[in-house]
């Protein structure tokens, strides 16, 4: 009979295969990547967990959405903690995803063979911004209402199809009940699913492309 501890160790080893078969110690060092991608993924995990919990008290309807948000702040036990965790983790994720991209760019880690993973990363940046934008409407307060009004007006300046795009996104001519429901579905189902798929692709390519980038020319560089 197999030792259960042994199985767990095997299971842990399987997860190590996110990295390439041969990993240099230097690739795993903090100074190479500042772990920015891992921190971004950590923030995303916090978003999933806190978001699922917030969904238990939130109704995407008018005016209930606003009252649910207020209930989360003042009535639900730990509601204000979860809501603020969701909010600050979202802000941190946007910051980290930019920082991750800048770090990859300035180190030249986007170069072949990692160019496909750079493109996947840019898609993930856009998806992060979209998730942020759709989440902004959900509290249904003055700030989110006018923020979404401004954002959807920017969409309507797309040449030729701008008005149609805005109409389809909002499900109407102005930010109203249809818009709230559409943004909710985008925020809690569609965007997270696509993000999870692309993160999986991102990690798979990281594995296939030889793991974390290290600069072989500056092997003795201490920076």
């Amino acid at each position, binding site marked *: 009979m197999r030792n259960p501890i042994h199985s767990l160790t095997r299971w842990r080893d399987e997860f190590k295969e996110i990295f390439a078969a041969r990993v240099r110690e230097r690739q795993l060092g903090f100074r190479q990547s500042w772990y920015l991608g891992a921190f971004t993924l950590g923030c995303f995990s916090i978003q999933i967990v806190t978001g699922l919990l917030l969904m238990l008290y939130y109704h995407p309807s008018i005016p209930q959405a606003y009252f649910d948000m207020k209930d989360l702040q003042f009535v639900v036990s730990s509601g204000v903690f979860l809501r603020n965790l969701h909010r600050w983790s979202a802000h941190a994720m946007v910051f980290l995803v930019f920082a991750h991209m800048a770090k990859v760019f300035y180190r030249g880690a986007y170069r072949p063979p990692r160019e496909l993973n750079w493109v996947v990363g840019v898609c993930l940046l856009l998806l992060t911004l979209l998730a942020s934008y759709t989440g902004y409407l959900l509290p249904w307060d003055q700030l989110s209402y006018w923020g979404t009004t*401004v954002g959807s007006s920017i969409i309507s300046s797309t040449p030729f199809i701008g008005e149609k795009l805005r109409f389809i996104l909002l499900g109407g001519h102005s930010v*109203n009940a249809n818009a709230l429901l559409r943004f909710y579905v985008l925020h809690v189902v569609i965007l997270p699913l696509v993000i999870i798929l692309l993160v999986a692709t991102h990690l798979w390519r990281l594995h296939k492309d030889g793991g974390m980038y290290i600069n072989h020319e500056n092997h003795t560089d201490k920076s």
Partner: protein
Amino acid sequence: MDDQQNNNPAAGIEEDRFLSRREFFIKLGSSSLAVAGAGAAVFAVQYLSPNVLYEPSPIVSAGRPEHFPTNSVTLDPRFGIYVVHGPKGFYAMSSICTHLGCMTVWRQDSGVIACPCHGSTFRQDGTVIGGPAPRPLPWLKTWLGSDGEIMVDRSTTIAAESEYIQA
């Protein structure tokens, strides 16, 4: 010469004329998929565009003319319109900023219409004074209803200074 053989036009046409069964079915299959994809795209756009909207009517009653004193600009935030009673008569304008859709306000002290979002300012005939607004505030179709109230159709814009109502 190899080059001459490759450049022989008749040989190329001869090869193109015959499709193998496999090539034919690949072409048939991929074109069917393309047609189905285009159909699905049309279907998606139609499904995502609501046919019935439960939005407020664009035609609203702004109130009786005597509620608006001469030389006044009155914002009605319920409808997003201004009712202006100028020297030539009454007219109505949209109060939605032409920049990015925020609700503007009339500033009595400085005599300008100002947008709180990005600082655009307008005169009381709707023309832009400053800020990022690309167009003047549009004038709206206005008439006197059967009960003597000022009616405004928010979905119909008219040329500025083209129509006034007298009351």
